């Protein structure tokens, strides 16, 4: 399948920060989660995709068009929900909808109204006067109905209450099911990652750590409880604690245990959260 977004060797240096080189492809029908510590460059990467800044090296192609080119008509196919919303404060929800809905040919008014009802969003209040949670709800209600092929969500659920988080997740699932679409999401909420992500792209201090399919990532780590801990380091060993060893290469580790006659009392997979923790260390 040809990718919808293709990032190749992207680099950008800022005063005190160096992003990249980053290469990442987004395929139709998938949800890719960007994961990293604060300041790892996720938002910068997304803004570069939206051509809000100029890269120092590398390319970004969106539906075959160079994102940094003169023709930006590809922006019709991308909806961007930024983490920090700029420029909306003076407008009411009604005005914002009037502006945004006119810019997208596939605007889904019914979905917008459903989300406004579900989240109980006051449309006649100025955006700047809404609470953070309400701002986020309105911004999401103005993102999904654009019905673009790609939806880019930068921290979409940070300020949502628990029921709203669940509603949003269900809406996003239905949205993904309705047509061939793709989502890029950054989130510090592990629930978002567990329930939504197909691929996980891990970043640390501007560098790409890896791009994993979720199950492949889960399967590549294992925790073993042993009757005795070997003195030397075990192949694949990431950390040890009392009778416990965490391995980042279960096949090699298990082979070693077999050869060394070490009895495994029990073994278990790691949580996604633990794995990300290990990757970001």
């Amino acid at each position, binding site marked *: 399948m040809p990718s919808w977004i293709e990032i190749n060797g992207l680099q950008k240096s*800022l*005063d005190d920060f160096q992003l990249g080189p980053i290469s990442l492809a987004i395929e139709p029908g998938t949800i890719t989660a960007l994961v990293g510590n604060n300041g790892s460059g996720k938002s910068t990467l997304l803004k570069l995709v939206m051509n809000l*800044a100029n890269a120092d090296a590398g390319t970004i192609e969106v539906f075959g068009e160079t994102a940094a080119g003169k023709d*930006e008509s590809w922006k*019709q196919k991308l909806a961007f929900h930024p983490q920090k919303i700029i*420029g909306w404060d*003076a407008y009411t929800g009604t005005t914002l909808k009037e*502006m*945004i809905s*006119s810019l997208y040919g596939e605007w889904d008014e019914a979905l917008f109204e459903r989300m406004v009802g579900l989240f109980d969003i006051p449309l006649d209040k100025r955006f700047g006067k809404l609470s953070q949670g309400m701002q986020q709800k309105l911004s999401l209600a103005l993102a999904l109905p654009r019905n673009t092929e790609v939806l880019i969500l930068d921290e979409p659920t940070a300020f949502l209450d628990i029921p709203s988080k669940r509603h949003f997740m269900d809406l996003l699932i239905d949205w993904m099911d309705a047509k061939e679409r793709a989502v890029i999401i950054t989130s510090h909420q592990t629930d978002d990652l567990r329930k939504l992500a197909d691929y996980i792209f891990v970043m640390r201090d501007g560098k790409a750590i890896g791009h994993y399919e979720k199950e492949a990532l889960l399967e590549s780590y294992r925790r073993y409880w042993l009757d005795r801990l070997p003195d030397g380091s075990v192949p694949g060993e990431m950390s040890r604690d009392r009778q416990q060893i965490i391995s980042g290469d279960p096949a090699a580790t298990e082979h070693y245990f077999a050869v060394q006659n070490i009895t495994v009392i029990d073994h278990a997979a790691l949580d996604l959260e633990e794995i990300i923790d290990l990757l970001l260390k």
Partner: protein
Amino acid sequence: MHTWKQAAWLAGFELKARIKRSLLMLAFYTIVGFIFLTSFDNYLADNFYAFDLLFLLLFIMFPAWMKPKIFQMQKMDGDLWTVPAVIMLQQLPVPKAVIVKSRFIIHSVYSFPYQLMLLVMLLVVSSSFREMITPLSYTAFVAIWLAVSVALGFAMAASEAGGTFDTKLLAKSMIYLVLGVAVFYAAFQWLADEGLIYWTIGMAQNWPMLSIGVSLLTIYAGWNYWQRVMKKDIEKADYL
């Protein structure tokens, strides 16, 4: 033409959002202008130097300051300075050329009505001005000042593209700008031996057709030049 239509539609949102305030500001501006212009007769008689500076301030800078704060140039994350709309619209499928044009429409709405008001008031308030000027030379006078508005004032519209500026550098360039204006002003007084407004009245009286022609050319060139500058600056800036 489609780009202008879309630009006007987008500008409409910002203009409508604070329409009451804008009308109030126009009234306020009229009063301040009226009070200020009562000293115009003095200026004509005694070549009262400071008048030129105050007039320029009222004519060029004031309209831009009238813009609601929420839509003005402001500091974003880090050292990024810009007007919020430039970031907002780039996140939507709006071509950069349309963004530029919408900013120019907004700046026009915040300058031309105020400036024309000031120029008309001059005619109303000052009897000596009325006596010395013919309809044709008045037209030339208005054209000259609108050209000044486009050539200088729209640099402000273009600067709304913003970018990453060091605060120290920003302060330094402000100082240089003020120094530059002061030097120009002093040099003008010394060379022409008359005030700036006085000089433009002379131009309008002596060469009305030439003044109109050059002014229109300046308006055309300035209008296009500053748009190109702004578009380039938007392309160059990093809105991170």
